[in-house]
């Protein structure tokens, strides 16, 4: 056989191998994109989508004269989760934060968690966004604080709340008695997370509307509550 004939035969063999390879790749593509699509979408959603509940603000407790005795305030805390264990990296990140919020004094709260800033002013949060997307160790967590007028006897009468996953539940006094009214109904949402568990912009979807907590108006006045305690 002459050289050209050998070349032609061998070139054809290479071409056939390449075409068969492409056909196999197309087959695998078809398998995932059409034949087993539902299975892999379900598996993917399990990793990427999160369902969560949220409550709107807890209702206020008001005396019969309209004086607010208990209300909720929302704060944002900045936390650092030490993923790498590198002190140099931690210090570098803290320095960046200090440039944005001078005077922050990070405090270690557990083995891997540092409270970097307690109760950040909401206006600084947008300035922290680039830092949060670059350093996945940083997280902003909302915190609800129940405030009660500064009379010990009123505080005792109104009672206490407990915070679980950002939600307040009454555990004593008026807070416990009227918890179902003050709470409202939880809303539900789904959101898509990226590999670092950050929310993907534009993926948040409300699946059930939340009902805000209602205010509870007491039959007693602030003075009467204080007096009740003195009489006892």
């Amino acid at each position, binding site marked *: 056989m002459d050289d050209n004939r050998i070349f032609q035969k061998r*070139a054809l063999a290479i*071409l056939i191998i390449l075409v068969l390879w492409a056909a196999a*790749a*197309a087959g*695998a593509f078809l398998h*995932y*994109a*059409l034949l087993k699509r539902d299975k892999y979408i379900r598996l993917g959603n399990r990793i990427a989508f999160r369902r969560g509940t949220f409550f709107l603000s807890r209702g206020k407790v008001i005396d019969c004269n309209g004086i607010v005795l208990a209300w909720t305030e929302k704060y944002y805390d900045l936390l650092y989760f030490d993923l790498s264990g590198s002190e140099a990296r931690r210090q570098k990140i803290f320095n960046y934060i200090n440039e944005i919020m001078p005077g922050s004094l990070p405090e270690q709260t557990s083995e891997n968690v540092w409270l970097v800033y307690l109760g950040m002013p909401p206006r600084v949060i947008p300035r922290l966004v680039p830092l949060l997307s670059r350093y996945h160790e940083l997280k902003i967590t909302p915190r609800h604080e129940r405030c009660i007028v500064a009379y010990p006897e009123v505080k005792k009468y109104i009672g206490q709340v407990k915070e679980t996953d950002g939600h307040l539940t009454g555990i004593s006094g008026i807070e416990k008695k009227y918890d179902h009214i003050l709470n409202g109904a939880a809303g539900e949402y789904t959101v898509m997370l990226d590999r670092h568990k950050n929310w993907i912009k534009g993926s948040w979807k409300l699946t059930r509307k939340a009902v805000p907590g209602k205010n509870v108006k007491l039959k007693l006045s602030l003075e009467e509550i204080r007096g009740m305690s003195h009489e006892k």
Partner: protein
Amino acid sequence: MKNSYRKSLKSMISRSPAMHKIMICQALIFVLGLWGCMAIYCSDVLGKSPLHYAGKQLLWLTLGMALMFIAQRIPFGFYRDNAYWLAGAAYIMLLSVLILGTKINGMRGWFSIGGAYIQPSEFAKPLFILLLCKVGCARKINFKSFIFLALVAAAWMIPIMLQPDIGTAIVFSLGFIVVYWMLGGKGWHLMLVLLAAVPTGAFILWRCPYIMNRVIGFLNPELDPMGNGWHVRQFQFALARGGMFGVKMGKAAWANSYLPLAHSDSVFATIAEVLGFAGAMPVILLIIGITVLVYRISLKAGNNFRQVYIMGMLAVFAIQALIHISVNVALLPPTGLTLPLLSYGGSSMLSTFIGFGIIFSAASRKFTENEETYGSQKL
């Protein structure tokens, strides 16, 4: 005006029977490049500046087309006669990148010059094939010349493996096999290459545990879906999300957050998510279309040197593209190889265009006829 344009086009095509095939090929290559720009845009559409990478890629595409036409205009005799010089320069670059190169993603494979990154292993591909053709055509093909060619190929693959860029080294080794086979090499010689690949592969797996982990993750992604199986899993999910017609461009969440290097290593999966099976299948068909056209061009290329170069270079292009697609459809373990003409990267884009330019130069009948008198011609 219209008639004179038609006449000039007709005369250009009639000058060479392969010319119309070359022109169709160039059009297909350009379409693939545009497809890549769109995919790169989609991979960062939820980011801050989605046009950043896509705009740069469009620039590379334009520059690449220009380089392809220049490389095509240069007589193939020039490449043949200066093969050792050209390959020597590329080899020096491959060696020096190991010392002077910049490390990106754990690989020391780039020169950083004024903010631009140049990857010598990409530019080495067309010159490596040229060198193998030159060495192979200058000798009678027997066991001695096989050993010599294998040593030349190994000398090129070692610096690439030291970067370490195992994916590119695999493409080089397959390029060597195709060139040797096209030169008329014996089948049992190539069986020796396959036999040698077994201990080499075992050694690489032993020395590079991350490659071993990729293989384990590929074979059983369920075993460690958040670790070794992560990449394979994300490819599967991206293809499934794309379905038949894809998701809307702004909703390519997998391409924007889960796929590893969505604009380069996972560009096919990005296209699959955005355009679905209907939009990504044409990429495979275009690659096969180019392969068939170039194969037919090679049959009419005149002499053995030109034919082997065309087939060798075509094989490097098609093999790299098919490895990338196979990885993205979870048919092969992740290799980190880009999809030529579509993945983001100036070096890959320009070297592919230069490679095709040399292919078209080799296929050009005008220069084939003049080859005998090339030595006395003025360039």
